[in-house]
């Protein structure tokens, strides 16, 4: 029967799409579990190093590190952490929109912006913008990125900061709130802003003993601190990507299901109408005889 041939092909193709999206959903779910574990595992380090930095801000080192000194802002560096692949809902576009908002503000203040990108999506987005210059890029880090992978771009930014080419450094990435929610955040890395005062520590004058000397230790510590924040952002963004992909693929599978149902209904109606017409033709033919 020739009825509804197109509809049947359409249903078939949607079913195939649904199979793909469902498979992607399941892959993303299992990857999300892994990346989330990784994210939680890196938290103690960044927490601890943050604490040390806080202590340090209250100590009174004889050596003022450039990372702790505020300067007039003429040029800003940002590190944008995005995913390598798409099909993860509005994850990247939300992040870029947030970044653009910031860029506009800085643009109005007459501040220029240098960008380092992590992930293919960020690169293709920021390379196309006329206002910003991309000065560093890394991508294809996989699901379990290592600290070594991002040292390069951080070094680019820190060197620029030391040379006075940029006066502030920010990192833009997605924060993992829960599986359904990911929040794009812009965080200032440099100069380091001391957080709220700790009464116990700030009440008296004290300082660390530095071995071998303050400059070397602080250089090392602050560089590690920046690295750990960017690394934390990276693993968090990974978990976000998988979560967002899982949710996006789930809703795609659900939509495909609805579409199939509707098409099935149309197909059945058409088939029934064709049968009714055939019967009435036969009956009419018999009556004529």
């Amino acid at each position: 029967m020739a009825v509804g041939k197109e509809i049947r092909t359409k249903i078939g193709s949607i079913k195939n799409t649904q199979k793909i999206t469902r498979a992607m959903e399941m892959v993303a779910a299992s990857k999300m579990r892994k990346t989330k574990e990784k994210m939680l595992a890196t938290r103690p380090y960044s927490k601890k190093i943050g604490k040390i930095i806080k202590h340090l801000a209250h100590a009174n080192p004889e050596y003022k590190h450039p990372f702790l000194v505020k300067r007039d802002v003429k040029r800003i560096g940002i590190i944008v952490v995005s995913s390598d692949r798409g099909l993860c809902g509005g994850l990247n576009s939300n992040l870029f929109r947030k970044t653009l908002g910031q860029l506009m503000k800085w643009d109005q203040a007459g501040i220029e912006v240098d960008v380092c990108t992590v992930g293919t999506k960020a690169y293709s987005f920021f390379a196309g913008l006329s206002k910003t210059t991309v000065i560093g890029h890394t991508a294809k880090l996989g699901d379990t990125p290592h600290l070594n992978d991002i040292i390069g771009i951080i070094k680019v930014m820190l060197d620029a900061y030391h040379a006075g080419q940029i006066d502030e450094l920010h990192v833009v990435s997605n924060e993992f709130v829960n599986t359904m929610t990911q929040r794009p955040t812009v965080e200032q890395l440099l100069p380091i802003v001391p957080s709220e005062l700790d009464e116990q520590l700030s009440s008296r004058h004290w300082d660390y003993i530095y071995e071998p000397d303050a400059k070397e230790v602080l250089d090392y510590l602050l560089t590690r601190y920046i690295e750990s924040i960017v690394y934390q952002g990276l693993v968090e963004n990974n978990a976000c990507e998988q979560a967002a992909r899982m949710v996006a693929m789930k809703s795609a599978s659900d939509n495909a299901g609805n579409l199939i149902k509707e098409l099935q209904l149309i197909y059945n109606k058409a088939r029934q109408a064709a049968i009714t017409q055939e019967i009435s033709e036969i009956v009419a033919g018999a009556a004529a005889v």
Partner: protein
Amino acid sequence: MTMTVHVDIVSAEKEIFSGLAEMIFAPAELGELGITPRHAPLITKLNPGEVRVKVSSTESYPFFISGGLLEIQPHVVTILADTAIRAKDIDEAAAVQAKACAEEILANKTSRVDYASAEKQLFQAIMQLRTLDRFRKRGG
């Protein structure tokens, strides 16, 4: 009761140890440090080597670290390790192999491989093996 100090050992990728200890031994850059409770505040860089956490007079845990940072507050000691692995977990075969590999590169200086980084690798491998040896003698 003996005095104790809280110790946290963390690496960038996970938490290694957290708990109370009577004494901690760490390979600081200017020499081995022994830290008892109520030590003065101190920050120092660590060399690759063995960190030993003495939990009680009979029990102590060794950890291998390949460099890092040590912070001392009177009641909290924090070790930020670049890579910290439980001494038991060190893959001895891999360490031996890395050592052999690094030595080969050292012997063959004409190759384009960075001489300094090879020496560092060799040093790390030797330290790992030493930690393991000591660990074994103690019957861990």
